[in-house]
């Protein structure tokens, strides 16, 4: 183990450079956040991820945000275990009928102010599951959504960009 620790110590950081603010995301946030109560979070947001019906593809890429390459915590973004600690719900979809109540209760459990980010083509719309008896549709069919990050699944860099943009807007209000 000592060898591995020393190797890690002397090799440079694996982390990628921070992505800039996303132009599309900025525009969407400008629209949605202006009307809401602003609060300074000291450039820090706690995120609760909710899988409301995903195929798990989006979860794999959201997971990757925590790896040493993307290292989301360097931006003050932290994934938390309970909605009680969360400022942001990061929701993947499509929202299934069987998950609707759980998603609504998770949202209700998060304290105000709170933001909802819909992730993936299924979370943003309904993806390939459109038309099924078992799904309601995109996240915005159930919760007010502040930011959409499309992709099937979105790359971690795109997720990071979206979240940093959200952070920037929230922090500078």
């Amino acid at each position, binding site marked *: 183990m000592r060898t591995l620790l020393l190797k890690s110590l002397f090799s440079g950081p694996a982390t990628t450079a921070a992505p800039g603010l996303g132009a599309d995301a900025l525009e969407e946030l400008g629209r949605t956040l202006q009307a809401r109560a602003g609060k300074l979070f000291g450039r820090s947001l706690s995120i609760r991820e909710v899988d409301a*019906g995903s*195929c798990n*593809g989006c979860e794999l890429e959201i997971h990757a945000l*925590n*790896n*040493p390459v993307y290292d989301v915590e360097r931006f003050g973004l932290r994934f938390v275990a309970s909605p009680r600690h969360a400022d942001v719900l990061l929701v993947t979809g499509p929202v299934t*009928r069987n998950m609707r109540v759980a998603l609504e209760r998770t949202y209700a459990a998060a304290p105000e102010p709170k933001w909802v980010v819909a992730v993936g083509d299924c979370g943003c719309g309904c993806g*390939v599951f459109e*038309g099924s*008896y078992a799904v309601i549709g995109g996240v915005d069919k159930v919760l007010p959504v502040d930011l959409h990050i499309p992709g099937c699944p979105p790359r971690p860099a795109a997720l990071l960009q979206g979240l940093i943009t959200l952070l920037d807007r929230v922090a500078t209000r």
Partner: protein
Amino acid sequence: MSAIAALLAPLQPLAVLRPWPRYEVDAATWEAIGRALGAGDGALMALWAEPGTVHLAVRAADLRNPAVVSLAAANNAFPSIGQYHPPALRPERAIRDLTGLTPIGIPDDRPWLDHGAWDAAAPLAPPSLTLPRERGRDGRGQSARDPADYAFLPVHGHGLHQIPVGPVHAGIIEPGHFRFTANGETVARLEQRLGYVHKGIESLLIGVGFDHAGRVVARASGDETVALSIAYARAVEAALGIDVPLRAHVLRGVMAELERIANHVGDVGAICNDAAFALLHAHCGLIRERVLAACDAAFGHRLMMDRVVPGGVTHDLTNDARELLFAMLDDALARFADVVRVYDETPSLQDRTCLTGIVSNELVTQWAAGGFVGRGSGRAFDARRDLAYVPYFGMDFAVPTFAAGDVNARVWVRIREVEESARLLRHWLWSTAEGPLRAEVPAIDAVREGVAVAEAFRGDVFVWVRLAAGRVERAHVRDASVFQWPLLEAAIEGNIVADFPLCNKSFNCSYSGHDQ
């Protein structure tokens, strides 16, 4: 001769299904097959239904190929296989929820996928049998039934308490409910309740084009998307008699093994993380990221979704990409060897993984559990070898099998499989045959059926399709998790609650793949 082979021997197979035989049987034979399965005579591979008919796929030692057995459900009912063979219970409960067919004699008549939230009961049944539900007062499509209203099995005893967990879990994972009954720290029983991410996949595979159906099947479980696409493509190709070019076969193999390495490495790290050993999690995360970046560079998608299609593959591998994959493999395997060394030399970590979450060989055999769940408990089955398909056919690779059945054994299966996958990859990358990437999909009006199995990282996935006039008429996808989830209930028994994440991660069953 096995009882199943003896039952099927006098029957004439239908010509419609390829490449396995399909038999139409009467209720007595159907029930006799259930009894034979219960007596350990063969392995149940899948059990599904469509309006009016139930099907099962079965393997027996003395059958050359697995067989599909079909029963016309008289009066919308059929004899329960689950009353003789418990692995059939959840599939039968799902069949009743989806198609309204009643398994006669089933010892567990609770719903499974249907949480009372759909507009109608039995959504896949013909309209005459579908039962619309009352809408709730709010008029927003809320169901009348509280989703939490589910009859968990009763537990009696002194000092027992229950811990409900989920469907929304503490980590970045899929939703499902676990009801623990514990005595102090020790788990007396775990009961799962799944179905939260049921997306109605079978209903989306009715009367759609091949490409669209492929995109849906590829998303039955995103982490094994390549394997699902391979199974689907092979089923369609078998049905239509398509000869896939060799280069496409090899590229499928390349993608499948890259997917296996990425998942195994990621999960080994995650298991260590659940034992509070974050160092290896960080290193595995780094390796996984390099593998996915190489997949992205080579095939244009980190998870390689929709790259495998009926007839072949959509993306070629350039010489540059091949060099990049070679370099990535050298780097990733060297880094992984460091990880394995630390895992092997850290007693405090092994203290958590050894003798934790044991599943017996009897159970994995009875459930025909595939993947590392089976192979970690001594069931040496790998579809790449035992139901061999190109490009694995004739290849020399080991199927690592361990007897202990604990978390540690499942970790070692994965470690050894990473090494075997890298060997296969290097071989194929050296020898990639030149040639076309995709054969034409012929237009055939007649009804054809195809069936195929592919070995995903977590076990064998099974796909059956019925095609007519260039469209998918009906399909069924069975994920390996269907026969692995119930064994997790057995694995956790007698362990402490705090070891559940460790056991769960060592299984890494798919919620989406199970719920569909």
